[in-house]
């Protein structure tokens, strides 16, 4: 159907593009923070910390655009829901980026200390979270509520990995109290990732709202 509101449609499309750009900035932050932890790459860790400012700015830019569209275009129904969904999703994205930044800061704290153990489950958690994030934004673009719901199931895997990380690090600390500082830092990393995956499930809930108009908690997380 030809739309008499083409320019508004274009604005909505740009908003979606902006959201995807922000999403990829956040993915990159997650990937690089883990990279910096794994490979003791302090330069990369500092880069993640610096780039977080850009992500925060992007979030404000998008919010500004949403406010302008509401003020000037009086969006209704599905158009209104797109804007409301975007307004909520950018908050979750911004917070995930903060968690990534937190992990980069931990990488800086650990510095060149000898590794407690090779990192295996934490990179897995990170990869899983990045994958969930990417799929949640795909679901947003495709207006696919089923896909969004199914992503929530993956949050359990992240929670299970977190359990595993926690148990393992506990044994290190129990055996040798000298490892407590290093082990605790790694638990923080796991916690940051667990929170990030939870934030992705929030994004999924927004996608379901966008498509169906229903607001409800679809993902009950263990943590």
């Amino acid at each position, binding site marked *: *159907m*030809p*739309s*008499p*509101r083409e320019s*508004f449609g274009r604005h909505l499309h740009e908003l979606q593009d902006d959201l995807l750009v922000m999403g990829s900035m956040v993915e990159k932050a997650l990937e690089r923070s883990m990279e910096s932890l794994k490979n003791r790459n302090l330069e990369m860790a500092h880069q993640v910390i610096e780039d977080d400012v850009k992500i925060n700015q992007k979030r404000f830019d998008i919010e500004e655009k949403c406010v302008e569209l509401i003020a000037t275009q*009086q*969006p*209704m*129904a*599905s*158009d*209104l*829901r797109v804007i409301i969904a975007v307004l909520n999703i950018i908050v979750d994205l911004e917070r995930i980026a903060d968690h990534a930044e937190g992990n980069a800061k931990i990488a800086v704290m650990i510095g060149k200390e000898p590794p407690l153990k090779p990192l295996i489950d934490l990179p897995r958690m990170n990869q899983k979270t990045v994958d969930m994030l990417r799929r949640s934004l795909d679901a947003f673009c495709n207006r696919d509520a089923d896909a969004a719901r199914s992503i929530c199931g993956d949050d359990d895997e992240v929670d299970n990995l977190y359990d595993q990380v926690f148990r393992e690090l506990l044994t290190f600390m129990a055996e040798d109290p000298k490892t407590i500082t290093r082990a605790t830092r790694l638990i923080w990393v796991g916690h940051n990732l667990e929170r990030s995956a939870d934030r992705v499930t929030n994004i999924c809930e927004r996608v379901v709202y966008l498509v*169906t*108009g*229903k607001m409800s908690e679809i993902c009950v997380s263990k943590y």
Partner: protein
Amino acid sequence: MGDSEAKIEAVRFSFYYGKRQALKDVNLRVKEHQITALIGPSGCGKSTFLRALNRMNDIIPGARAEGEIMLDGQNIYAPGVDVVDLRKRVGMVFQQPNPFPKTIFENVAFGPRVLGLDGKLSMDEVVEKSLRSAALWDEVKDVLNKSGLALSGGQQQRLCIARALATEPEVLLMDEPCSALDPQSTLRIEELMNELKARYTIVIVTHNMQQAARVSDWTGFLLLGDLVEYDKTAELFSRPQDKRTDDYITGRFG
């Protein structure tokens, strides 16, 4: 479905202009003391429906109604219904403010003069009460003998509302009541509607969807004579169930 009773209920109501069917089997309950808005693109049947509620369409040659419209449980299309009495109970305000070329006082007094006062209030009292209800009294109380046509557009429309209220209707039909008014006057009329709904049941037809969203409690969306969707206004404008409603209110067509 709602907090109050149906004041008006359309039951399988269809309307024809000659061979053309303007309304198709419309079922709709207008709640008492609520504002019901009808929206839809030009030619969807919303004005036809509004005018059917006090049988204003009767005079159009070849026009024909099927089904029923119940007002307090009585079919207004039943044989023997007194149309003058019906229109006293169901008043109407039109798109263009159309005061009579008479004084402000006489504009409001016109209906009660024709229909007769019920004796409880004097004509002066009826006029004042009606003008107060229409939020116009303070502006005109010292110039009641001036011509109604000397007022501004927004004031003229409120004068027309006062005129409609003077016969003490139960239902007020409003056909695009603000489309000829500036934004300030529009907001005044909307505010007024909000006050009036405590005493009257209001049905409004509007092209302005933001107005429907602002002012009404219930909204019906009509398309090509079909009532596509009818719901609480907040629901209809945030999560319409029908794709056609969504397309229309987001401006995809219409």
